[in-house]
């Protein structure tokens, strides 16, 4: 499969409607947060946009909007808890519309994000959390070279049962080697 082209850009205020629509889709949100899956008002979404449009501490955390080749907003990805001393950070990603899943947008966007974090921001290790029932995401992360480092047993209650949360991580060296071999 050829990777679709994506661009990481800043969020803008007029992205609100797209965000509002997709963050009210439980099929998406159930992968993203351990909190109860509940509707979001436009006001609540506006707070997210406000933080993204006027970010407080870009060194530590930032939300990128993911645009496809037609410049449509297809998702978002971010880094959090960047520690400059330890050169680590966490990442997160979502492709909003389930119809866009499986097209490679996520992989393309994460590769852009990793290039940024390793080659520009000088991170050494990138971590992420993923629920065990998010098999699609786990497969994508493994393909990129992420390895499971930990497992928090029965960390999230969802769909009537307790599920594990994995902590996965990727080192800059391993990612560079992986890219060189492609």
């Amino acid at each position, binding site marked *: 499969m050829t990777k679709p082209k994506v661009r*990481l*850009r*800043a*969020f*803008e*205020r007029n992205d609100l409607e797209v965000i509002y629509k997709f963050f009210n889709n439980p099929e998406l949100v159930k992968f993203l947060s351990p909190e109860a899956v509940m509707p979001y008002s436009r006001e609540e979404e506006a707070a997210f946009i406000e933080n*993204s*449009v*006027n*970010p407080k501490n*870009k*060194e530590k955390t*930032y939300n*990128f909007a993911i645009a496809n080749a037609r410049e449509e907003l297809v998702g978002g990805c971010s880094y959090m808890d960047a520690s400059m001393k330890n050169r680590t950070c966490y990442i997160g990603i979502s492709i909003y519309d389930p119809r866009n899943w499986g097209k490679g947008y996520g992989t393309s966007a994460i590769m852009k994000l990793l290039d*940024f974090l*390793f*080659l*520009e*921001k*000088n991170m050494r290790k990138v971590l992420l959390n993923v629920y065990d029932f998010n098999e699609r995401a786990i497969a994508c992360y493994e393909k990129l070279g992420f390895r499971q480092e930990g497992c928090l047993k029965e960390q999230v209650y969802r769909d009537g049962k307790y599920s594990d949360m994995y902590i996965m991580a990727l080192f800059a060296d391993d990612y*560079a080697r992986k890219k060189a071999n492609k």
Partner: protein
Amino acid sequence: MPGKKQTNKPKQEPLVKLRAFEKEDISKRHNVADNPATLRLLSSSTIMPRSLEEEAAIIERCLTPKDKDSFYTFAIENRKGELIGSCGYKDVSPKNRRCRISIAIYEERNWGKGYGTAALRKLLDFLFLEKNMHKVWLTVFAFNPRAMACYKKLGFREEGRLREHVYRDGKYHDAVLMGIFEREYRAD
């Protein structure tokens, strides 16, 4: 004037004009300045996208400059009146009569057309002939040979190197310090 040859050639309009930034420049600049190919040459801090509102905050600081004596950013306009870049001075030391300068031509399609050189000539004219600076200096990344060639052409000389000063594209690069004196500029 008798004895002097009169040339009737129409005066060529200068290639660029330096002007103040205006409110209307916000969206124009956001469209072109948010370009990683340009940004990677300009700053050693992390290259990140900017929202329209962040861009507006930057321009707004230029619209009502706090201390024009110490730092200022000019907008660079071409003959068609398009905003193509910016240049400015900062870190003015009145006692030592020196300052640092910087310049950006936003879009790659405008590189290699002499815009940068023309704008820097205007800036140096201003700094040496009006603002009475003795020395102007700058830093340039070692992976920017185009800019270094331009500065050398204008008479700048390399004065030092900050070794492996900038992390970019997965490697450390030197930053080069260059400077020029008023007398060198006038002699040119």
